[in-house]
């Protein structure tokens, strides 16, 4: 297997805040200890009247407070990173111990009642220094204590007998010294051992929580599904401190697992061949819903490729199913280069990561399915377009040719009938086009992407196109727009459709001599476009239903104006797709005003 990311990276990912918190707490405790030394000295000297070397003890207390302050200043100077962490720890322990030994010396050396504090300080050391370093420091502590006892015994250092009731030669008794040092060592070992185990478990939990957090972030990020799965594989491996992991998904036929993402595995191993379910009992078991732990991989009969596994250096494997809502999607495998690496709680954690993977995979699959169905639908629309339009277009062409007299002269009645046919066919063609537009508008997902574009050129173009038609009736068509570009988030085609429809309708439903006014203006953070006509209007009770598909107001039908009733529903959908709102006001017999507000994009 390949070498994993450096452990410094791991620490940096999972420990910085935790370490800073611990150090802050230790600093606070040290304030207390320093203060306590001063207070206790004063108390013992003046209240209990014990023969304490006051000056030395006050000095010790003050020194403790002083270097604590120095430490606080240093921490503020530079933020703690994984690299700089180490030297502050050594420095703190060093200074603490100097103070401690001095304090012990001044309070009776080996007979000092404060020796238990030294034992407790081991706890602090274990918190700050994971693993074997704590034991090294323990050895150092035992050495220091023994040294202190022997120096005092030999007379090289003075001895302060602070508890008068104690025998004055006790400090020189080798048995006593032995007993004190012995119990100190045992007690410290016990503390270091227990604390190390607890710290290890804490750190593991932190790593796992960190990995789960990263996993949820990866899943909800904008990465492609494959990238998400690559991250999950890496997360899973790191969190359990393992060198490799892989995610394999069930193929469509349900008979094999294809490789989707891997971490820490060699190319040769990944290319070994397809994983077929009938030959891999390991994966079959996992896919049935249970996590599977393989403690000795090369010798396990459930594996399909034992030789490749051995060559890759894999000694134990953890396999968990990735469970989707409708059944298993695949497996997550974590590899270790040591046998018996995995426990049930590891399996539990891997299942949690696999659950994140399931969410990502199902999202991706759903999106793919959606795209396929959208493509199928778009294709259907295109086919129907042709199949419906071709025959109608053919019929219309022939009609026009006949009406032009190109197939012979026509009687009045024949001409009349042909005209009626033309009207029916024209409506049919319009209806087909509108229906197809509606179908196209509703498939929002595969549409053209929205772009930022100025509004005015589109409105101008539509008005230009309709000028001829308006002049024929006649209806006065006017346009007012500000000169500076009003930028909206839309598609050109959509805007053309909206305004062709609204302005076209306005002209269509306004009788001769009327007027249609189109005005656009900036309003707050949006652009407001009003299309106002002096047309037949919409009855008040029918206004709410205006946007319904196929709805036509009764006065429109009565006026004999043709229409499909689809235009406004299309317009409303488009306006809403562009993030805007549309509103209609009308008085029957006087006119109608449509107001569109679209959000403005600052250029």
């Amino acid at each position, binding site marked *: 297997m390949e070498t994993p990311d450096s452990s410094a990276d791991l620490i940096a990912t999972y420990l910085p805040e935790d370490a800073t918190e611990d150090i802050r707490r230790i600093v606070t405790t040290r304030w207390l200890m320093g203060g306590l030394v001063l207070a206790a000295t004063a108390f013992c000297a003046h209240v209990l009247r014990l023969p304490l070397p006051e000056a030395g003890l006050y000095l010790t207390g003050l020194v403790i407070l002083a270097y604590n302050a120095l430490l606080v200043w240093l921490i503020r100077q530079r933020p703690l990173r994984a690299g700089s962490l180490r030297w502050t720890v050594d420095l703190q322990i060093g200074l603490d111990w100097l103070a401690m030994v001095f304090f012990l010396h001044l309070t009776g050396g080996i007979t000092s009642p404060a020796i238990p504090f030294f034992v407790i300080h081991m706890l602090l050391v274990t918190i700050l220094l994971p693993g074997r370093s704590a034991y090294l420091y323990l050895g150092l502590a035992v050495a220091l204590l023994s040294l202190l006892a022997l120096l005092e015994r030999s007379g090289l250092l003075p001895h302060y007998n602070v508890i008068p009731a104690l025998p004055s030669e006790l400090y020189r008794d080798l048995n006593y010294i032995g007993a004190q040092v012995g119990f100190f060592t045992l007690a410290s070992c016990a503390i270091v051992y227990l604390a190390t185990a607890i710290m290890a478990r804490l750190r593991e939990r932190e790593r796992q929580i960190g990995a789960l957090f990263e996993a949820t972030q990866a899943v909800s990020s904008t990465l492609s599904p494959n990238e998400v799965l690559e991250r999950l594989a890496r997360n899973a491996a790191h969190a359990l401190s393992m060198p490799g992991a892989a995610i394999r998904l069930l193929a469509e036929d349900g008979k094999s697992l294809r490789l989707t993402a891997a971490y820490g595995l060699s190319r040769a191993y990944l290319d070994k061949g397809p994983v077929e379910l009938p030959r891999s009992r390991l994966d079959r078991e996992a896919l049935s819903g249970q996590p599977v732990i393989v403690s000795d991989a090369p010798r396990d009969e459930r594996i399909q490729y034992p030789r490749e596994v051995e060559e890759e250096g894999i000694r134990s494997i953890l396999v968990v199913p990735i469970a989707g809502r409708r059944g298993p999607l695949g497996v997550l495998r974590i590899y270790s280069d040591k046998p018996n690496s995995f426990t049930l709680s590891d399996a539990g954690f891997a299942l949690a990561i696999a659950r994140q993977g399931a969410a990502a995979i199902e999202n991706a699959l759903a999106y793919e399915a959606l795209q396929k169905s959208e493509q199928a639908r778009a294709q259907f629309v*295109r086919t129907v377009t042709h199949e419906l339009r071709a025959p109608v277009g053919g019929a219309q*062409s022939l009609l026009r040719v006949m009406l032009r007299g190109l197939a012979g002269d026509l009687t009045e009645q024949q001409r009349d009938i042909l005209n009626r046919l033309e009207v029916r066919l024209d409506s049919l063609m319009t209806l087909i086009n509108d229906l197809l537009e509606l179908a196209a508008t509703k498939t929002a997902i595969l549409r053209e992407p929205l772009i930022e574009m100025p509004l005015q050129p589109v409105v101008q173009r539509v008005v230009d196109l309709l000028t001829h038609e308006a002049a024929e009736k006649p209806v006065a068509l006017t346009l007012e727009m500000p000169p500076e570009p009003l930028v909206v988030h839309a598609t050109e085609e959509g805007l053309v459709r909206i305004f062709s429809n609204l302005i076209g309708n306005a002209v269509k439903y306004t009788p001769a001599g009327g007027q249609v006014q189109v005005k656009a203006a900036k309003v707050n953070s949006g652009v407001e476009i009003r299309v106002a006509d002096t047309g037949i209007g919409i009855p008040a009770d029918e206004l709410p239903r205006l946007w319904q598909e196929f709805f036509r107001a009764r006065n429109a039908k009565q006026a004999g104006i043709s229409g499909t009733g689809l235009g406004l529903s299309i317009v409303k959908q488009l306006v809403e797709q562009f993030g805007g709102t549309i509103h209609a006001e009308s008085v029957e017999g006087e006119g109608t005003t449509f107001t569109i507000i679209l959000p403005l994009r600052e250029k």
Partner: protein
Amino acid sequence: MAKILIIDDDPDMVLAARLCLERAGHTLIEARNGTEGLEKVKTENPDLIILDVMMDSTTEGFHVALALRSRDPNSEYAAYAHIPIIMLTAIHSTLSLRFGPEEDYLPVDEFIDKPIDPDDLVNKVEKLLNKGK
């Protein structure tokens, strides 16, 4: 006056075109699909081609146009690449197809939207025939 080849699988459209163009004095030859159309280009050497955009398959019209106007100097249709082509389309804004004679992709000279307007067809035909002269 001119010999016009129409390549279209819709017999009604062909009839409509025939009535317009024969009245204007032209001769009309028809082909029902792309393959037949390309053969007739070679055998009849028309003065103008009217081509439907979609026939049996969705891109048949495009393929005929591309074959006729192929850039390959060894193409079997090289001698016919100069013949003006009018394309009959069902362009509608929903399809949002934007191509014109300048477009590299579709080398035709004019477009006519279906259903055809007889005057429009005759005018465009005359215009293209006169351009050639």
